[in-house]
């Protein structure tokens, strides 16, 4: 069994790949994962995988934002974008596409050609187009993420300059009396506006959309409408990086 771990900013995703290629998944809150299940040993993070119910894998491959600051003991670490490309190729069977990965704080766009990354863009210095932003905005609207992800029609125009000032702006729009559906659509559209330049630079005839934000159906619709290409969301978008780690280790 191979264990792939994606140390994300919001959650730690684990994929277990059995010898027959079948996959099982586990997800942990990032902070409690580090606090409750890990301890630092000689500058490396030791995690008791057996105690987490993950058994004793023959190999552990890790990636993610966390790997920049934390070396997971006993794990082979691979670059994050490599993991995402491997995961997307494995999940979709496609080899030429534009990968869009929207995670807790990350926006990544990767140009994949013949199964390999040939160029990429990532967000920098700001997380205004990420899952954390959607969570904040949903909280302002007092709806859950599932409800937020239903709306894409008649979007209220919101600036996309700052995730935090965006909340104040959204409250202003609530005061103006816009329906929640239009406000939610406006929030989803700000995500698109932010990533549009990155997508344009690396656009192909297919977008593979991964990361937790790929569960947002409204955004999928917006992407298809605006970019005029099919958007493929793999079965396990949020576990894509962890699956890529398993692929790298197999």
């Amino acid at each position, binding site marked *: 069994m191979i264990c792939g771990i994606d140390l994300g900013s919001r959650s730690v995703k684990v994929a277990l790949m059995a010898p027959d290629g079948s996959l099982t998944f586990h997800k942990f809150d990032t902070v409690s994962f580090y606090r409750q299940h890990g301890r630092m040993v000689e500058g490396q993070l030791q995690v008791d995988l057996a105690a987490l119910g993950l058994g004793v894998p023959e190999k552990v491959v890790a990636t993610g*934002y966390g790997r920049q600051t934390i070396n997971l003991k006993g794990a082979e670490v691979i*670059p*994050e*974008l490599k993991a995402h490309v491997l995961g997307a190729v494995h999940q979709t069977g496609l080899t030429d596409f534009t990968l869009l990965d929207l995670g807790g704080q990350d926006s990544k766009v990767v140009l994949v050609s013949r199964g390999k*990354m040939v160029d*990429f863009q*990532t967000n*920098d210095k700001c997380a205004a187009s990420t899952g954390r932003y959607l969570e904040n905005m949903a909280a302002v609207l007092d709806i859950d993420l599932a409800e937020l992800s239903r709306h894409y029609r008649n979007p209220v125009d919101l600036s996309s300059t700052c995730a935090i000032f965006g909340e104040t702006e959204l409250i202003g729009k609530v005061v103006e009396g816009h329906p929640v559906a239009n406000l939610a659509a406006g929030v989803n559209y700000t995500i698109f506006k932010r990533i549009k330049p990155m997508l344009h630079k690396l656009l192909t005839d297919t977008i593979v959309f991964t990361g937790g934000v790929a569960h947002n159906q409204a955004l999928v619709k917006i992407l298809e409408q605006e970019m005029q290409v099919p958007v493929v969301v793999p079965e396990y978008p949020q576990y894509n990086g962890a699956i890529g780690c398993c692929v790298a280790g197999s």
Partner: protein
Amino acid sequence: MQKVGMTTTIPVEVVYAAGCIPVDLNNIFITHEDPRGLVEEAETAGYPRNLCAWIKGLYSTTLQNKDIKTIVAVTQGDCSNTHALMETLEMAGIRVIPFAFPFDRDYDLLKLQIEKLMDALGTTWDEVYRVKARLDQIRAKVQELDRLTWQGDRVKGWDNHLFQVSCSDFDGNPDAFEQRIDAYLAELPQKEPIKADLRIAYIGVPPIVDDLYDYLEERGARVVFNEVQRQFVMPFGIDDLVEQYRTYSYPYGIFYRLEDISREVEKRQVDGIIHYAQSFCYRQIEDMIVRQKLRKYPILTLEGDKPSKLDARTRMRLDAFVEMLR
């Protein structure tokens, strides 16, 4: 001897010929024990938060070094924020001598600028050429270090950066600087070869972070070309001083710079290019042109803000880039 601050590379021969000590304010800002503190000091004084950290650093550096009472400020060919830097320093009682590199690289205009600088500091062409001959001897040694960077495997990217960037003012003491470069070149054969299979070109202004080169080398990629830093060495073998600063590419347009970049990346057989741009700098816009003109090379654009180490996000991007080149 009087110290003369400079906001970027200028014809340094003139400063030495006038019997003054040139001080590249960028170098003493970035090697200060707390460069971030200098940036914050300028912000406290009223400099906007969303402005390039170099300008803020130069402001505080000038004011902290009480022995610098005169600066030469490049008003054209570097950064237009220098105008306000000059004005705020003038308010603080600093004598400011403006210097403009003509955008169209006009010989006569450049000559006029150099002569105005000579008048302002008080020197003659004879003295300037005497200094040029001396500095060219030292420059030749730094050029050799640069050649060994791409034709050998023992010069670290950081050392290449540091020696070349220091040629803007020769650390205020050409003789001592020459001794250091001599010692470095002499020690080179005993150094361990750098094990890195990927060759990287670094283009754009020098980085505000200091661990980029080592980070790349740890991952098996090494910088074999530092574009702007190399320009500071004046590696052209030109006797005419005006022509030398007309050939120097940094203060002129991106298309002229790209001629030099294209030539060097080809010659040095690089696998990929890192284009560094400073946050809030107009040069960020030129990334569009760089990407189009150097399309056959993989390019990673990095943005630096405050003086610091590489942040986690930039490291992630560098990892992905190195992985992509393999």
